[in-house]
């Protein structure tokens, strides 16, 4: 029981991370500030926009609504796990080809939501995809190109 920094250990994108954090440090801020993984974005910081979406133990969560101390022992995946500018994951290539991003601010969150959908081609109906991405607010694309990108990605055998 403490207000002082708490030691946590977790796995982020396959790498072990150890840190001391204040209890009130959100997982989103921990990833961005302590780990310098700034791919995870802050939009609303109260759980409605989805820009902060990451995977915790395989599940898509809003990282602004978790405290880093709660992720002790967890396996976290952020957008940085997908690829690099020189070697994009096929999910990211699908977005580029479909025009599924413009300003790119919502994109990491949408990619994580898509990643959480898994590699099941049966889930690649437009209805399922729209339902899933309704959790992420995008002001640029109008969503059609995002749906196309995810439909393509889910339909591929290789997935991510």
């Amino acid at each position, binding site marked *: *029981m403490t*207000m002082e920094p708490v030691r946590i250990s977790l796995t982020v994108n396959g790498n072990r991370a150890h840190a001391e954090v204040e*209890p*009130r440090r959100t997982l989103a801020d921990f990833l961005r500030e302590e780990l310098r993984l700034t791919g995870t974005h802050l939009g609303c*910081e109260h*759980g409605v926009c*989805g820009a902060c979406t990451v995977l915790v133990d395989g599940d898509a969560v809003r990282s602004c609504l978790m*405290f880093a101390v*709660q992720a002790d022992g967890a396996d976290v995946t952020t957008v940085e796990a997908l690829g690099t500018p020189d070697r994009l994951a096929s999910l990211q290539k699908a977005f580029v080809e479909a025009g599924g991003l413009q300003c790119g601010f919502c994109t990491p969150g949408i990619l994580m939501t898509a990643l959480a959908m898994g590699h099941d081609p049966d889930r690649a109906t437009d209805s399922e995809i729209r339902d899933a991405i309704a*959790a992420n607010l995008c002001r640029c694309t109008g969503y059609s190109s995002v749906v196309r990108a995810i439909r393509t990605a889910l339909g591929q055998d290789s997935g991510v």
Partner: protein
Amino acid sequence: MKAAPFEYAVPSSIDEALALVADGGEEARFLAGGQSLVPLMAFRLAEPTMLVDLNRIPALREVVIEEGGALVGAMVTQAAAGGAEEIHPLVRQALPLIGHQQIRNRGTIGGSLAHADPAAELPAVAVALGAEMIVKGSSGSRRVVAADFFVTHFATAMGPDEVLEGVWFPNRQPQDGSAILEVGRRPGDFALAGVAARLRLGDGDTITDAAVVPFAVGDRPVASVPAREGLIGSSPGERLFREVAGEVAANVHPTSDVHATAEYRRHAVRVLAARALAQASRLSRGGP
């Protein structure tokens, strides 16, 4: 804003959790899924000085079949509950209406009930089913039936030194049907108006039990008395459901706000009640 500083404790048992809150003073709060509490903390509408995290108490994650029903641990996530066929269908029908998958991956059955948001689905479901809340305090456990549990918006019958340990939902009986419907600006938004309904058909196609519970139109979900009286003893049918829906709507007193007017909410209740009864009736007869 960032949350105000707080002390953090993560007990491994319910008794430890209760002791921590007792020692933590008035501003100690339990942290369940955090999908309602943490946004409040981000706005600094809630500034607990201590959070007692319930996420590492395995006993609270269990679903146990109990005589005539299922005892759902308070920390069972909404996502996990979706796959548990032991739990009454009306609970599982409500889950896709709750926010989005990301919220349901962390949000809990118990957390939603204890938070008692008048626009929430699970409190209305609990009232419709006659669920029982298992409340634990330092002096022991007690069971509170749903109709008595929700006191007003964001307030329940639990004391400051009590925790919701679990909720018992009764089993579906043959010839039971249920439905839950809501309207909102977008899927995943808070409901502007909603209705949870269940029917039981007896021999001769007569309704032997029923509950119609509007939500998001008052300070807490209350089963409609005239609906129950109008349904029991009658045969299911469109005209009956329209009449009953009218009674339900006439007896709610919603308020107007920036999201919807009182008139719209009352109209929505009337439409949703009739539809929910029709759906429940089809399911009770074994239909789709």
